């Protein structure tokens, strides 16, 4: 690390876990999460020289979010390329899985993945990446009040989606 700016390898090693967590919660499956992280790391590698010291994790969360939103826009332009958002839910590993908590986690993840992107992204940035509303507003280039309302609306939609589960 020179001048406080991490190397590409340090970013991947020390913060890759966060990148992957955010990517997975946004994408809803490992396959797409790997695509997102791969692309995010390429952008990190290209953009490290422009990184200004501050919240590195906030910067990384912003990058992976932008990759995700770019991917969403690309799929919207080319809908035949899109895989179902809940592919893993359609094809569960085992219909008779004994682990109830794992099943519940899958249901919660499916509910997150089913949220419209405008709500999913701020909820994930808040509750997975632990970003402040101010950081989320900067990442999405929207007013603070919009972040607040989208997080609240997203949580309301999650509540509706999970109303049949004991939480």
């Amino acid at each position, binding site marked *: 690390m020179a001048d406080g700016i991490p190397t590409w390898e340090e970013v991947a090693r020390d913060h890759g876990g966060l990148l992957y967590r955010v990517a997975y919660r946004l994408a809803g499956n490992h396959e797409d999460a790997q695509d997102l*992280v791969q*692309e995010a790391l390429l952008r990190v590698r290209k953009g490290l020289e422009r990184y200004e010291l501050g919240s590195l994790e906030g910067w990384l969360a912003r990058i992976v979010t932008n990759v995700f939103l770019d991917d969403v826009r690309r799929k919207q332009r080319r809908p035949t390329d899109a895989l179902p958002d809940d592919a893993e839910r359609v094809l569960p590993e085992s219909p008779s899985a004994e682990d109830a908590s794992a099943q519940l986690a899958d249901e*919660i993840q499916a509910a997150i993945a089913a949220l419209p992107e405008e709500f999913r992204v701020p909820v994930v940035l808040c509750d997975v990446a632990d970003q402040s509303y101010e950081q989320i507003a900067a990442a999405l280039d929207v007013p603070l009040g919009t972040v607040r309302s989208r997080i609240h609306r997203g*949580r309301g939609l999650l509540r509706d989606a999970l109303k049949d589960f004991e939480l």
Partner: protein
Amino acid sequence: MNDESLLSAYVDDELDATTRAEVEARVAESDELRVVLDDVRAMRSVVRGLPDVTAPAGFWERMLAADADEVVSLADERRRRRPRTRWSFAGAAAAAAIIGVAAIPQQEPVQPRLATLTQSHSDRASLDNDVVINLAGVVVSQDLAP
């Protein structure tokens, strides 16, 4: 309360002291708002309490092994042609052959033998008939040429 979204901001500790006190006063007066507040807390806990998720085995080896300009270029080319594909093992193996082996935290270092990598790459490239992967083979050959 005109703006229920203040409840989420309240739970996330995103309000100034004055607004926070105002929210608490309104909630104290309203059973309906208390129910919403409980729901907000529950959903926040549900998402934050999800089990940690990690990348499949080998993913970080491939990512770090791919830290070579040649492979980045190849990845860009592959993405341009096939937007949803990922780097294949063969491509990553070629990258590892180019730049050596990277140590990954929490996972065993990988030190594949060059002959194995080359053979694996060659086999995969032939099977896939993938022009770009085949190009990766060209890169390896050129880099290894005396």
